[in-house]
């Protein structure tokens, strides 16, 4: 393509001028915000580090996590650390005593969330976590990780609605099964199980 020398340069400068002037009034060309004063809204699907969900008001008793350690095993950089609760006789309880996530190692991959069969661990969207204490403050303990279900609903409404529906359905099915079992037991208490065939 033949063109007058200098024309390409002028065209470029014109483009720059258009962008410069445009940056004062065209929203598409205004791309920066003053961060600590202004904040962009967090997108619903955004994920940062994991958190543990609890139902009800008590973060200890309501914790959904049963300490099955699946997430600990599947976490690629191995940054989850779980120690199970034991009762006085030393029997292992279905509850974690320690649940630590080293967020200086965690890479926000969400694999723990995907593999957890109990919907107990979900992704938090909090991102302002910088701290001066590199060793202590970046190791999140169970108390810091535990978040109420309402908080989760606020962060990820669509996903939380699905999870709630699923859990409710499962609870209902379980209750129904239990009721059936109960009814069976009360209706035919004496009959052995094999004779209930039609």
């Amino acid at each position, binding site marked *: 393509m033949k063109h007058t020398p200098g024309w390409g340069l002028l065209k470029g400068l014109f483009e720059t001028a258009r962008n410069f002037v445009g940056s004062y009034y065209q929203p598409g060309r205004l791309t920066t915000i003053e961060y600590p004063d202004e904040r962009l809204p967090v997108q619903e699907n955004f994920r940062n580090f994991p958190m543990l969900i609890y139902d009800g008001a008590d973060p200890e008793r309501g914790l959904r996590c049963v300490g099955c350690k699946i997430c600990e095993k599947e976490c690629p950089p*191995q940054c989850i650390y779980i120690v199970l609760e034991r009762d006085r006789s030393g029997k292992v309880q279905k509850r974690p005593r320690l649940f630590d996530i080293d967020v200086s190692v965690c890479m926000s991959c969400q694999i723990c969330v995907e593999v957890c069969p109990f919907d107990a661990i979900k992704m938090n969207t909090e991102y302002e976590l910088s701290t001066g204490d590199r060793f202590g403050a970046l190791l999140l303990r169970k108390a810091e990780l535990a978040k109420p279900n309402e908080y989760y609903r606020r962060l990820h409404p669509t996903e939380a609605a699905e999870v709630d529906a699923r859990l409710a359905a499962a609870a209902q099915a379980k209750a129904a099964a239990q009721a059936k079992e109960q009814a069976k037991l009360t209706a035919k208490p004496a009959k052995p199980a094999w004779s209930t065939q039609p």
Partner: protein
Amino acid sequence: MSDLRPAMETLERIRTRLEAAVAGAELEVVANGAVAAQGSLRVDAAHAVAVARFLRDDAQLQLDYCSNVTGVDWLDRVVRTTVRTRRVIDGLERELEQTTEHTVPGYLEAVYHLYSVALRHGPLVLRQRTADRADGARVASLTPVWRSAEFQEREVYDLFGVVFEGHPDLRRILMWDEFRDHPMRKDYVEPDDYEYEPTPHDEVLAKARRHYAGAGGDRA
């Protein structure tokens, strides 16, 4: 997907033609158990360059593009074979089981994935094996045939310790020059001089403690 691509000759045919073209070359078709069942061709180091030249220059193959070069470390394996024999003992025929164990010595392998840009077919997988897993185990370098092998063979040398004979510039590429071991080998022992910091992982912590035992132990 693959049916749209012009088909390449079968490995068996390539092997037959290669044996005719390169005198004395030891070739073997290696089976692949995966779903794709894509076999590969093993060649001995002494004839590898001649075979590679043939594959590149042959009019029907024209494998002018060597996409991927890598190493594989196969450890020594213990193979148990159970032989059943029938023998007559005390007038009764009995079945006896005899288990023999023997060790298949390990080796290192260099694997090349070849394609043809001109004819748009491939891949042909070419393998070379070293005699053993000793330091300085050798295979032939194919860099003179395919320039793209230059950095990748250096990498295999660096990480696996395979020496490529005829490589123009065989130096470490990713690790530093003073580094002694070959980290991609299966029996590589990682160093324990981690930066010592509290982590929830007992093993790492224990290793770090052991390493820093002389230097005061606990960070307190």
